[in-house]
């Protein structure tokens, strides 16, 4: 097998994560799917770093991880705040911008 298989796996995981964002209603599960997408991208980076033979891909993946961590922190804090005021964690309930 060659290294490209990792890339296909990464594409597949990314797609699953994208569908998850659209289909799931629980805000936290949506967030997890976003994390899945980020991770798939990371896998892709690392694989390309291996294919190209230098470590730039790994550095990118590293930064991505850091940023993802920050994002998770702030995002979950927001979800908690929303939950506290609205008593619901469903994304469908935040539909006040309807026309």
């Amino acid at each position, binding site marked *: 097998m060659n290294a490209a298989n990792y890339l296909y796996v990464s594409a597949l995981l990314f797609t699953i994560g994208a569908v998850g964002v*659209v289909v799931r209603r629980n805000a936290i599960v949506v967030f997890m799917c976003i994390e899945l997408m980020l991770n798939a991208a990371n896998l892709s980076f690392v694989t390309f770093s291996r294919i190209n033979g230098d470590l730039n891909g790994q550095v990118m993946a590293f930064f991505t991880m850091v940023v993802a961590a920050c994002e998770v922190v702030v995002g979950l804090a927001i979800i908690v705040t929303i939950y506290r005021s609205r008593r619901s964690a469903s*994304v469908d309930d935040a539909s006040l911008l309807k*026309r």
Partner: protein
Amino acid sequence: MTTSTSLVYLIALPLAGAALLLLGGRRTDKWGHLLATALSASSFGVGLYQLSQMLGRSTEARPVSQKLFEWINVGSFNVDAGLLLDQLSICFVLLITGVGTLIHIYSISYMSHDHDRRRFFAYLNLFIAAMLLLVLGDSYLNLYVGWEGVGLASYLLIGFWNQKPAYATASKKAFVMNRIGDMGLSFAIMIAFATMGTVSFSGVAEHAHQTSEAALTAMGIMLLVAAAGKSAQFPLQAWLGDAMAGPTPVSALIHAATMVTAGVYLITRSNFVFDAAPTAQLLVVIVGAITLMFGALIGTAKDDIKKALAASTMSQIGYMILAAGLGPVGYAFAIMHLLTHGFFKAGMFLGAGSVMHGMNDEVNMRKYGALRKFMPITFATFGLGYLAILGVPPFAGFYSKDMIIETAFNAGGVKGIILGVTTLIGAAITAFYMTRVMILTFTGKKRWDDNAHPHESPWLMWLPMAVLAIGSVSSGFLLSRGDALVNWLSPLFEHHAEHEEHLLEPIVVSALALTMVAIGVAIAFMKYSRQEVASVAPEDVSIFTKIARQDLMQDRFNEAVFMRPGQALTSTLVAADEAVVDGAVRGLGKTALGSGSALRGLQNGFVRSYAALILIGAIALIGAIWVVVQ
């Protein structure tokens, strides 16, 4: 070509008068009319000076020019604003300023009760200036400026009392029909520039030999259309009768002596074009002949004295146009008849104005009768004009009209005989209706309204009439003595020394003409003098009278053929504009609104559907990359 610096004063003086009186407003009311008359007279003075100078010079040096400024300089199209005074123009200049000044003097008294007298004089001065520019312009384009100017002045003066809607409509009608003629002149100028590269008279005269006959014929036809519009010839003659809505001095000056003669001037000035395009010349003759009969027939049925005289003008100008269409031999006679006609027709119009003044502005001749005892001077001057127009020797019309009839016969062949017979019959009918006018107005029993107090007019009014009467008597004799006018004008026309065929001896022609006149007078006498004249126009008349009363159905024809389809076209276009153009714009708006409402459906407030849209957008982007990286 000698140059002069004083030509511009001919135009500038009356133009300054017009400007001053119009811009000065009510402040100039007290002395405006006097200033206008003085300026017109001074213009006449300059004209006399120029004539005296011209008489002293040799024939080649007679034409005088003055370049005012460089007007248009675009690529190969160069036109200077310049003036040209040659033997032809000086005749017109003296006619315009002379008769114009007399009419100014007449108007001082005639319009004395009018609140807007100053404006009237301003327009009169404007007209004089524009008409002078018309005859003094040295190129077709300069002539066109004057052409438009007199059209404007005519519009302003016909509709002078525009408080009456009928008068305002009449002035509009005159202007619109003039406009059709103006289109002809525009096209002629375009053809001249396109084929010859120049629009000046001297330039066109030079190039006329090298240009194709087709182009010259087209130009000639366009010039004829222009002349027909301005001179009220068939088929553009319907406006002249309605133009009588203006004050009588206007009818005398513009629609008898000067503006309506502009067409004759144009054709005469363009002699080089017509001489090289025989087809166009033939058309000119035909138009002249038709109008001659047209005007005469209409004149027989008109009860309005001014409309009768207008029909007479139409007919006499038909004579002039016919003469102008006969080639180099005829131009001089056309001009001669023009000059004599200016005298007697203006005189008769002023006489008509005098009668109207005495009869409380009544124009219906059926309400006149037996006025010669009450208005003797008017009767005398009018009578002299009447004799002149009939062509009774030794009055003016005898010389000019008989020469035209003779030239018509001498044109040769079938054409000559038809034209000659037409002019003779026209002379008979002219005699008939002019005698009718005289009898109805001045002789017979009184048929006045109860409040009529006919009286003679003040001296300011009968003095110009008298001067014009003197002209009616003597001008023909003076102009034809020793072929004076013919020789004066001959350097301007290329006279092919063709054998002048005399079909009939001049004396025979004169005898024939006088016979026709006598017949016409006799018929009129028997019809109107012997029998009782009804004070209301009778209803049960023959079909011919009815048609003649309707101006030979010209108005009806114009309305049916041009006006109604034009109106239909306009309303169709308006409806189309509304439906199609406006509809398209409104449709655009509706589409925008509709698509906006449709797109609003996407905003359902759910984050997940927005996420789905983002996903689709991402697919589109990656698809684009996929395509590009191919």
